[in-house]
């Protein structure tokens, strides 16, 4: 397993400066963040140069406020267009895929008004349609789309690996897999390690943050059990650090690989 870090957490002005810090701290890659309005595509010159300079950028995580599961049809269409573009860019960079949730911050069944404007069947139809479009595009680009289950307060549609796996089974495309996140799993899964072993075949990407969304080691997640489960199923891809930082931010980022390496 290779530990990588999201770009905004790394100190440095350019990707090259961030890369130098990352390598010195023990990271083996940078996870990019893909903003909307095709701005990720517009970064291509910068990204191509970084790649030429040896920066390893295997994945991109979407950084927008609307998603392919949006209630609004125009927002959905735009999110699909943005994700297709991000998949194409990460493919050009030699990466493996792009990660997105179904939605974020749009609706929670745990908060008022509790009942969403679209019923479950409607949600499912929208999600399957989006995953099909994005999966087909990912396959054509030779990369994968990683569907990320979020906790119940951030998304009302896909919270657990079981739900993501069910959608992926129905879509039937190998290019759609689950991008798991330890923080969300800690909230939603009865046993995160057991969920990993049960849905191992679908796990394509992993993001790490502790129980409190802080850097691994700053919360109470059982990292030995979580990472031990990934080891047990033979997961050999990337562990991308996506978290908030407590204490000195530079030292916090520097501390993470040693915490994770204890277990993998």
């Amino acid at each position, binding site marked *: 397993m290779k530990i990588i870090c999201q770009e905004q957490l790394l100190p440095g002005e350019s990707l090259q400066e961030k890369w130098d810090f990352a390598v010195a701290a023990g990271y083996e890659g940078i996870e990019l963040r893909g903003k909307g309005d095709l701005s990720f595509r517009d970064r291509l010159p910068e990204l191509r140069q970084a790649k030429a300079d040896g920066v390893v950028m295997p994945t991109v995580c979407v950084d927008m406020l609307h998603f392919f599961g949006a209630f609004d049809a125009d927002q959905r269409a735009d999110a699909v267009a943005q994700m297709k573009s991000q998949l194409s860019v990460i493919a050009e960079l030699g990466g493996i895929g792009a990660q997105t949730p179904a939605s974020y911050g749009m609706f929670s069944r745990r908060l008022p008004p509790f009942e969403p404007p679209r019923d479950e069947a409607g949600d499912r139809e929208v999600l399957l349609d989006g995953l099909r479009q994005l999966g087909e595009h990912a396959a054509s680009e030779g990369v994968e789309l990683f569907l990320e289950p979020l906790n119940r307060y951030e998304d009302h549609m896909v919270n657990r690996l079981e739900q993501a796996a069910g959608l992926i089974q129905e879509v039937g495309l190998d290019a759609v897999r689950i991008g798991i996140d330890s923080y969300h799993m800690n909230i939603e899964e*009865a*046993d995160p*390690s*057991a969920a990993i*072993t049960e849905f191992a075949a679908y796990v394509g990407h992993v993001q790490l943050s502790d129980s409190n969304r802080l850097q691994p080691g700053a919360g109470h997640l*059982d990292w*030995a*059990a979580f990472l*031990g*489960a990934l*080891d*047990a*199923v*033979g997961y050999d891809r990337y562990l991308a650090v996506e978290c908030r930082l407590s204490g000195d931010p530079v030292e916090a980022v520097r501390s993470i690989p040693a915490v994770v390496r204890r277990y993998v």
Partner: protein
Amino acid sequence: MSELRRAAERVLLGNWTGRSTVPSHSLYPHHWSWDSAFIAIGLRHLSPRRAQVELESLFGAQWQDGRIPHISFSPSVPRDAYFPGPDFWQATTRGGVESSGIVQPPVHALAVWLTHQADEAESIRRGFLARMYPKLVAWHTYLRERRDLGGRGLVAVVHPWESGMDNSPAWDEALARVEPAPLHSFTRRDTDHASDDDRPTDLDYGRYVQLAATYRDHGYDDARTPFTFALEDPCFNALLIASEHALASIAEALSLDPSRHVTAAAELTSALTTLFHDGIFRPRDLRAGQPRAEDEQTTAGEQAAGRLVEVDTVAGLVPLIVPELPQAKELLATARGPKFRLGEVRMVPSYDLTGPAFEPGRYWRGPSWFNTAWLLHRGLVQRGEHQAEELADALRADVLELAGSTGFAEYVEPFTGEARGARDFSWTAALALDLLRPSRP
């Protein structure tokens, strides 16, 4: 080897229930005492925190008198999933945990100490040793004060299941004195998921039920129960000695005086010597000589003294784990001799290969088990001699090969290594995981 490690980890992750590990989802769906200790010894490599929780959960079922029941029942499993279940035992702790009333060998202090060592920072952060120490002391105190039925300073088991080696031929003679409970009075569940040929016979099962019912009907009171079955088992006592040594280490780590545990270990080791005969340790049957209906009356002297059972089982080799064991050299010679053929057959047979009761596929009457192999491996490594180390290396390789080839079987046929009993058995996976790590005494 990394594939074996991953497979073992998958077994332990799969058998984890949130607070503890079931030995096997199909055959043993609750929390077993000595299984839990062996499981923690391997689980500590996967998740030190889970290993600590495993042992803490088990001690959550500790009785007021200090005993650790051999089963702590899971409330989420149907009441009739296992026999004898909670309705048979009728034992509930003050904390509301339903359990059995008998015990199993005290491997726990050793497991606690090894679990602590796996991640001392996490152990200290969680206050693991400080929390476990008084409970372990209470457990050992129960055994030494309430279960010294022979008055020699050794602990007696009062049910074959307490030895952990349920149907060992060493219990046959003593068990024959027990009137079996009628077959129609209970329904076995252990044969639902395993071949009848691998499991104890119905007649034996009726005797197990009778012994447990008598203990239950006397309120599990050791002073009041008329035990018809009472034996000083060398394996049980050797594990208590190993655990007293571990308690001494735990006490030192807590800046407490370890001397009471050092003394206890020495006293027990000295008393254990009285079980040594003919190159091996044998159980002492404290009720031998008491009349069966069809037998003639024996002398009162024989009754008081008890008698060593002339049946050789792997339980008699387990004292090899006792540090500075005076009889170690002779014991090792017996292990390598025709009865157990250490290094020539698969792991260590549970019973004398030349014995009249030998059955290669039936539970503790011949098959080789992974926990006893682990214990002997530990004993051999502790000896620190060249020959013992060679044997230890070969035994370790055999355990690892068999764990993988059998799908983590509960036990194996000692000549062919064929899998028997449950698969994905937790302690098999755990102890393989432990032996995959570099050995240390």
